[in-house]
């Protein structure tokens, strides 16, 4: 039974224990509470609001991942609204029980209503492309967002139709975090069709501005090559899988992983496993599985191949898995080491057990699986050095 606070103070014996725990102890408890509940607890008192809104708490909360909350954002590209799902519960409980409707942030400057494309996420922020030429960085939990234009990059493609198609074939997109500057960067590389020169644009969320420069990309990936879009941000670098288009011939050099180092700000190349280097295969994707870089693609044997680089930058550590499912798109590695992903044909989640090779399907179907990305919820705020008089 809880004793009344007042009678505690009267009974001398417990008087020297402060009934209110000191701030650093409270912080130790807050670190273990899932983000969603933390938001609510801002109302407890002004001190708690400060503790929870203190920029350092979200950072340590996110970095230490004591109670990470993973979600899936799905946007079927038609008029239906985007939905997010609690990933940890999704496989067991199915989509209808774990879904939440959300709204993409409004953009006053945009008259057109041609839609969004979901690209990828980083530290709780999701990168979206909004037709005709806007990029949106959005935190679905706190609803904070930043919108900016990339018109200068796509201007050569105006009147050619939906930007997304063009971006897929002729540009590279990436979104990641530069830990050395505590800044988020959006990367866009495109070919200026008049000059036939490649350009690299880097948008810093901290300065809210683009830095554009001419660039020479190794092996000319923007020319008739299929680029896995968007780039995968992992280990402080952005990765794209670049494979030659069918019909360009093998002499363009096989497929390669192009890497952009966020801190050093330069490109370098990483070889793919030699078994898949020169084979043509339908376009696939780069995914992060259990913190490792993975390549996945559907093969002509009606199965999906997944290659996981178990040790980063160690060629000999590439390990192959054959998933007995034609259009399998892996999402993440479960705690038990199973590969969980979408069965694109059946529009449901499926789990592949790496030990016994068995596939298990989750109950419940998704209506449409076009754009999706996973994100980990965070209370992090975007850097905004350029703004005076913050709210």
């Amino acid at each position, binding site marked *: 039974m809880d004793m009344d606070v007042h009678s505690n103070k009267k009974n001398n014996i417990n008087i020297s224990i402060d009934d209110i725990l000191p701030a650093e102890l*409270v912080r130790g408890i807050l670190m273990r*509470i899932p983000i969603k509940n933390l*938001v*609510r607890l801002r109302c*407890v*008192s*002004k001190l708690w609001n400060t503790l929870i809104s203190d920029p350092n708490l979200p950072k340590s909360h996110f970095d230490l991942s004591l109670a990470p909350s993973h979600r899936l954002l799905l946007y079927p590209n038609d008029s239906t609204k985007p939905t997010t799902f609690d990933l940890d519960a999704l496989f067991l409980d199915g989509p209808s029980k774990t879904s939440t409707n959300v709204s993409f942030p409004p953009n006053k400057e945009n008259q057109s209503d041609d839609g969004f494309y979901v690209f990828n996420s980083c530290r709780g922020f999701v990168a979206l492309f909004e037709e005709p030429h806007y990029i949106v960085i959005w935190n679905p939990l706190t609803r904070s967002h930043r919108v900016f234009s990339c018109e200068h990059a796509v201007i050569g493609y105006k009147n050619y139709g939906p930007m997304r198609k063009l971006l897929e074939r002729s540009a590279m997109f990436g979104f990641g975090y530069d830990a050395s500057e505590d800044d988020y960067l959006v990367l866009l590389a495109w070919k200026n069709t008049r000059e036939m020169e490649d350009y690299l644009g880097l948008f810093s969320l901290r300065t809210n501005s683009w830095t554009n420069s001419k660039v020479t990309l190794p092996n000319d990936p923007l020319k008739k090559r299929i680029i896995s879009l968007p780039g995968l941000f992992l280990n402080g670098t952005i990765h794209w899988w670049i494979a030659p288009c069918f019909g360009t011939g093998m002499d363009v050099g096989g497929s390669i992983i192009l890497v952009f180092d966020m801190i050093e700000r330069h490109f370098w190349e990483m070889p793919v496993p030699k078994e898949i280097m020169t084979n043509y295969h339908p376009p696939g994707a780069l995914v992060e599985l259990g913190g490792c870089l993975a390549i996945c693609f559907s093969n002509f044997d009606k199965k999906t191949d997944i290659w996981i680089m178990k040790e980063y930058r160690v060629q000999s550590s590439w390990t192959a898995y054959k998933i007995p499912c034609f259009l399998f798109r892996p999402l993440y590695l479960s705690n038990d080491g199973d590969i969980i992903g979408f069965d694109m044909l059946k529009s449901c989640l499926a789990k592949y057990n790496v030990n016994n090779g068995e596939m298990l399907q989750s109950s419940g179907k998704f209506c449409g699986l076009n754009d999706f990305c996973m994100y980990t919820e965070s209370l992090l705020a975007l850097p905004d050095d350029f703004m005076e008089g913050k709210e």
Partner: protein
Amino acid sequence: MSGISDTERMITLKTVEGTLFDVKSSIAKDLKTVQAFIDDSDDDVTSPIPLPNVFTRELSRILDYLNNHHRFRSGIEKADEEMARYDAEFAKSMSHEELKALILAANYLNVKDLLEFLNQTVADVIQNKSVEFVRNFFGIENDYTPEEEEKLRNENEWAFNGVEQD
């Protein structure tokens, strides 16, 4: 102290109420504050070490926890299940008042594993509870005006669904 091995040496601790506890030095190692005191002393510590911020009830619980955890870990077979059951009972046996007092004591004595366990226990208790419950639990007074609180709740409206009844 010839003939007596280090792990059998006993340390005496004295609580606020003056109660004396004899503790094996291997257990005392987990009370990092105490261990630092011993390390800093030039001579062997023979007289009881006073703990002016720790009450008998809390020290007794902490030593119980440490003794049991040492026992679980020293077995030839891992006693994970037994330890989990003990931990659950340990957490359940305390009122909220006692839980808070124990956290303060564990923090003062710098008992890392126990403190993490207690933090997790409290986090589990409060995470789905209402704001009023949390205030009550920590003995915090609400220093928001009704208007300020209303505004804050509206901004974070979606986070208030699914809260357990007190």
